């Protein structure tokens, strides 16, 4: 046997050992990774984790990458392969011969010759299996199947995770939009504007920052919608103010062209954003609310009140019949509700307003009830519970921000509609601004 052939045999063994090690380690790594993935999936059944499938996949990929790195670092050497071959009854002949392959000497030469002779005669003894142990393979396979199975099981937490994810996306989109607006406002050459105009722009900036904060605090679809409605109204108001400023510019012509262009661009952008927001909301939440309104008619009639809409429907039904519930099909029954307690006739009219709210309106006569807790100073969410005619019902809890947002929106709408005495607008604005 030639040296070359001797080396080739060792090399073949080495390759097989490397494959065997890779498969063995892969099975181990996949089992561990699958275990980790299963843990993620189990957690995701209880806790909203949108990226759970990606995490599980990453765990598997990470396991395999680790195996690959380990294999590169700790790959079988020729010496190890030679020793492995010696396990098949060669009594360390091959390893010794390999180590002394280039050495000269009587005994070294004889040893090499002896090793090659033995290898040639008993080469068939060498059997290096590349497959991992069946126990490990079965374990790995079972864990992978379990992982896939768990990933397919639906759960409330998974649905919630999806909802939160889409919410985050929308919030992010809105945040970017507001930040762009704020940037544009900052870039305006304010020294060219009158004091009043500057003040108006500062108010706009503050108002936008407040909206930004609202978006950042939004943890539910309701909060997001409330913030969006408020922002839309603000856009509408701001674009009106910007138009006024533009008009003043045209009248006075005391501005640089750049500032005028910037103002115009901002106004367009706000109108555009407002249009988008309205369309989007009408397209999504409007449809949802419509469904809610109609879907809950029966519930409302039965006196069930699982959520704000239902309760409002109930109130409406109790006082003014189906007008409210029907009205809420277009938007929701919240307003109808709020008004229905006091003025049944308003149900239908208010129900058509695209302003879904799910808080419970507290009648004036019990507003100071000791069952009502919380205060505006520490921004706590109030709880309200009331026993009426032997039936117990409980209002849906609505966060402080949503309630304040709703009231603020109504106030701004009132200002826009000219419902308040002149000169009170600023006081109202300052009042609501003090909450942000």
């Amino acid at each position: 046997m030639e040296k070359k052939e001797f080396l080739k045999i060792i090399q073949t063994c080495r390759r097989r050992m490397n494959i065997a090690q890779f498969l063995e380690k892969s099975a181990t790594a996949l089992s561990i990774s699958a275990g980790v993935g299963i843990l993620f999936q189990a957690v995701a059944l209880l806790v909203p984790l949108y990226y759970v499938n990606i995490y599980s996949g990453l765990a598997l990929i990470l396991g395999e990458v680790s195996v690959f790195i380990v294999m590169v670092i700790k790959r079988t050497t020729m010496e190890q392969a030679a020793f492995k071959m010696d396990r098949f009854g060669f009594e360390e002949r091959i390893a010794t011969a390999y180590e002394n392959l280039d050495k000269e000497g009587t005994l070294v030469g004889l040893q090499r010759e002896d090793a090659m002779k033995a290898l040639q005669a008993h080469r068939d003894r060498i059997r290096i299996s590349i497959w991992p142990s069946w126990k490990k393979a079965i374990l790995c396979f079972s864990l992978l199947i379990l992982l896939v199975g768990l990933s397919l099981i639906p759960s409330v937490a998974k649905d919630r995770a999806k909802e939160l994810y889409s919410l985050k996306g929308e919030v992010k989109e809105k945040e970017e939009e507001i930040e762009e607006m704020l940037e544009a406002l900052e870039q305006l050459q304010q020294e060219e504007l009158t004091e009043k105009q500057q003040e108006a722009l500062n108010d706009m900036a503050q108002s936008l920052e407040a909206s930004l904060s609202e978006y950042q605090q939004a943890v539910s679809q309701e909060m997001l919608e409330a913030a969006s409605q408020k922002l839309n109204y603000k856009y509408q108001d701001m674009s009106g103010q910007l138009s006024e400023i533009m008009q003043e510019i045209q009248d006075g012509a005391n501005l640089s062209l750049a500032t005028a262009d910037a103002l115009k661009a901002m106004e367009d952008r706000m109108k555009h954003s407002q249009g988008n927001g309205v369309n989007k909301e009408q397209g999504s939440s409007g449809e949802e609310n419509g469904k809610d309104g109609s879907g809950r008619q029966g519930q409302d009639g039965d006196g069930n009140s699982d959520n704000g809409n239902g309760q409002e429907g109930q109130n409406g039904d109790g006082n003014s019949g189906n007008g409210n519930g029907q009205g809420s099909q277009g938007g929701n029954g919240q307003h109808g509700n709020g008004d229905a307690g006091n003025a049944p006739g308003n149900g239908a009219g208010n129900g058509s307003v695209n302003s879904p709210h799910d808080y419970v309106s507290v009648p004036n006569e019990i507003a100071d009830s000791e069952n009502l807790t919380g205060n505006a100073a520490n921004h706590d969410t109030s709880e309200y519970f009331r026993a009426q005619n032997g039936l117990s019902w409980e209002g849906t809890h609505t966060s402080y921000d949503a309630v304040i947002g709703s009231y603020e929106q109504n106030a701004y709408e009132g200002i826009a509609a000219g419902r308040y005495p002149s000169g009170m607008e600023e006081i109202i604005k300052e009042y609501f601004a003090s909450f942000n």
Partner: protein
Amino acid sequence: METLDRSRLQDPVYMAQQIAACEKEIQKGIIGQGGIIRQVMLAMLTGGNVLLEGMPGLGKTRLVSTIGRVFDLSFKRIQFTPDLMPSDVTGTNIIIKNEQGSSFSFERGPIFSNLILADEINRATPKTQSALLEAMQEHTVTVGNDSHALKEPFFVLATQNPIENEGTYPLPEAQLDRFMFKILVRFPSKEELKGIVALTEGSEAPVIEKQMDGEGLLAARTLVNQIPIADAVMNYLLEIVMETHAPNPYIREGASPRAAQSLIRAARAKAFLEGRFNVSFQDVKEAAYPVLRHRIIAGFDAISKGITEDEIIKNILDAKSALFEKI
């Protein structure tokens, strides 16, 4: 009858065959002690000395005399007793009167032989023991101001009785270390005993023929020292010796560096005897027991639990083998 071809003393294959033939020839004269013969042969091939521990009458003297005959080496037996003096072993200067007058002449003691059987070495005083042990280590004897080189090959086979302790001077650990092997001689089986009786009490004594001589044995030793050892095997061997120094409740003192040297030589010799020119893990494992058992000092825990040195060595070998199996 001269059987050794002197022109082939450097031929490893031929020499391995000759050594194997010697072993076979020795087995003709000794029944049922194959393992002991093998270990004594290993010690001879590496120039080490052997301490045999066993009951009297197990054929120790016969073994040494047979070896002497097969290898054509001079043989002396020294019975150690408490009153044995160092000069009784090494020799002494005596006054010689002749025509020119009186002069001192060195009278050589029994140690000036190739093979020495130091029977019941632990019965002699430490002073006498030291005289022998110095000769074993240095292969020279110093009397007065003169040093006298011993004949090569020089090989000591000492025996000690494990049962009788009264009136004995157990060898200190440092001196035990000078013996390459400590071999435990077990009592023969019934079949072996039958063979021994037939051999010794029969009318025809077996004819033991010379197979080699001292020169051939020294040439074989040179070849044995050249046998290559793979790195992993060497590591395994060193790990075993190092492990005797690792914290272990059963070991009070571990083996000396001399143990590693002896282990390497013994493993090489074993491979050579088997006609192989490389050392295997198995060679190391088999050589570990006789090399280490007198170099490990058992701790209190081992003594109180009746755990022998061989069991401690087995545990070490098993632990280390498991690690090396993973290669």
